């Protein structure tokens, strides 16, 4: 078991969706402002700013790299370092781990982590083409028409083959996430969704249909990480980082030798060991999705389904509102919207929000422990973080 060294003490988020009038920098400023106010801090309390890599606009990303947020938010001559962190969709987990490490090493005291992007406002084909380059080899895969839907489809194909998971079970992941999104005012899609509607939607990339696929969205979210010993003096609702585990399994998806598992079993075992608690203690699973097969792979690897197959577990409603293991209560990328790297940040911020008791209508009762996961590119890596209200 590892010493608890860091805690989340504030969160901020703007709604996800298509907001062509809201620039990336505006969304970033608002999310950071909300996180600083949520922590009860002043901007000058922040000593490290970590902006996540943004994909839609190179110009905006350059601004993030070169400390624009420090200038916009009153942190000039108080912030010591502005440093970009980027591992695609895994950045939620990796950034939290890096912030924890800086804090544990005495190199930082209060770290502001921020993501903003506007991939939802890109023209549709530009969005498809952008995500046909993230973790897709230009030389070896792009010439064959590879793209992000194909990644989710290839993994679903392999996973269904190895586990016997059905199309209905795959669709049930989308339905469960939508049920949660109906309770989330920041979600892009809030209308009810049924398994029949998913299975009646147009086939896009076998076995995936249109409603198995995420929609790109604009969004921004921020959180502040502080020293564990400071946290109870900063806020009444600190969320402690108990343990993190991770494993890189490929760059290009064609090189993964275990596509139906990835590295979640190994990453989960590492995270549980560091936290000193196991799957039986998890009351909330904030699982990175984007396509419905990934939560199933993750639930299996983390042994969260009490010996059942993940597909059967989700189809039985166990991860829906009222179920035994609420999962991704913001609605995930499938329903809150795929804000590029921010899809994972939103999943992590929701874990903090739930553990802080600030999730409103969708608040999970009596919550103490949660598990958060993430993966980048074409699910190149498997990240698992255990978070607790107390330790």
């Amino acid at each position, binding site marked *: 078991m590892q010493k608890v060294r860091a805690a989340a003490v504030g969160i901020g988020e703007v709604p996800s969706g298509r907001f062509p009038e809201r620039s990336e920098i505006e969304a970033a400023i608002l999310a950071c402002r909300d996180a600083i106010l949520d922590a009860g801090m002043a901007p000058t309390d922040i000593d490290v700013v970590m902006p996540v890599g943004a994909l839609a606009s190179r110009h905006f990303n350059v601004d993030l790299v070169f400390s624009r947020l420090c200038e916009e938010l009153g942190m000039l001559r108080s912030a010591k370092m502005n440093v970009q962190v980027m591992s695609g969709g895994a950045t939620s987990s990796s950034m939290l781990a890096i912030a924890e490490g800086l804090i544990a090493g005495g190199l930082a005291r209060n770290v502001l982590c921020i993501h903003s992007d506007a991939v939802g406002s890109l023209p549709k084909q530009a969005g498809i083409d952008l995500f046909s380059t993230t973790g897709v080899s230009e030389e*070896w895969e*792009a*010439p064959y028409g590879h793209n992000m839907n194909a990644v989710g489809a290839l993994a679903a194909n392999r996973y269904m083959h190895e586990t016997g998971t059905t199309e209905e079970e795959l669709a049930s992941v989308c339905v469960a996430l939508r049920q949660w999104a109906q309770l989330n005012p920041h979600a892009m899609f809030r209308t009810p969704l049924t398994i029949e509607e998913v299975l009646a939607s147009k086939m896009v990339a076998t076995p995936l249909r249109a409603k198995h696929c995420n929609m790109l969205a604009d969004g921004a979210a921020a959180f502040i990480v502080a020293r564990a010993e400071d946290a109870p003096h900063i806020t009444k609702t600190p969320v402690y980082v108990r343990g993190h585990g991770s494993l890189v399994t490929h760059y290009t998806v064609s090189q993964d030798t275990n*596509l139906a598992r990835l590295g979640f079993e190994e990453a989960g075992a590492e995270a549980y060991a560091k936290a000193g608690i196991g799957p039986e203690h998890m009351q909330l699973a904030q699982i990175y999705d984007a396509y419905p097969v990934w939560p199933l792979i993750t639930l299996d690897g983390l042994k969260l389904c009490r010996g059942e197959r993940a597909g059967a577990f989700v189809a039985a409603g166990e991860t829906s509102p009222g179920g035994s293991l609420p999962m991704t209560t913001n609605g995930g990328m499938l329903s809150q919207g795929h804000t590029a790297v921010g899809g994972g940040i939103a999943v992590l911020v929701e874990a903090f929000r739930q553990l802080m008791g600030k999730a409103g209508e969708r608040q999970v009762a009596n919550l103490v422990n949660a598990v958060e996961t993430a993966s980048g590119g074409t699910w190149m890596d498997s990240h698992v973080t255990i978070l607790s209200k107390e330790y």
Partner: protein
Amino acid sequence: MTNSSRPLPQPSRWSAGYWEAAAERRFVVQECRSCDRPIMYPKRVCPHCLGDDLGWRASPGKGEIYAVTAQLAGPPTGFADRLPYVVAIIRLDEGVQLMSNIVGDGALEARIGDRVSVGFEDAGGTVLPVFRLDESEVAR
């Protein structure tokens, strides 16, 4: 970009031999002469021993489908007129994996475990290795 912007491989100094062989309708797999292991995709140094005495081994180009998906909508730029097309991860008998298209008879019904053999497709001046289902699979 030509050919309605379909992306084509831009060989690196160490992968050129693969594409030169494909242009001659030959399929090769990179090999490490220090540790004798096959390497896919071609690399500058051997990922097993970090040696750089690398060469090419003629391959029969046979293997089986590890995962497969038929693309029916929403393709990247350059592929709209190719719909439907089939993207697969192929595990070669040498033990290495690569992505390619499954083309020809039965491609849209290709399944995991199906045996496939390499073929070649001219994509506007660049020859791409592609794979076809073996006859026994098509007859299935």
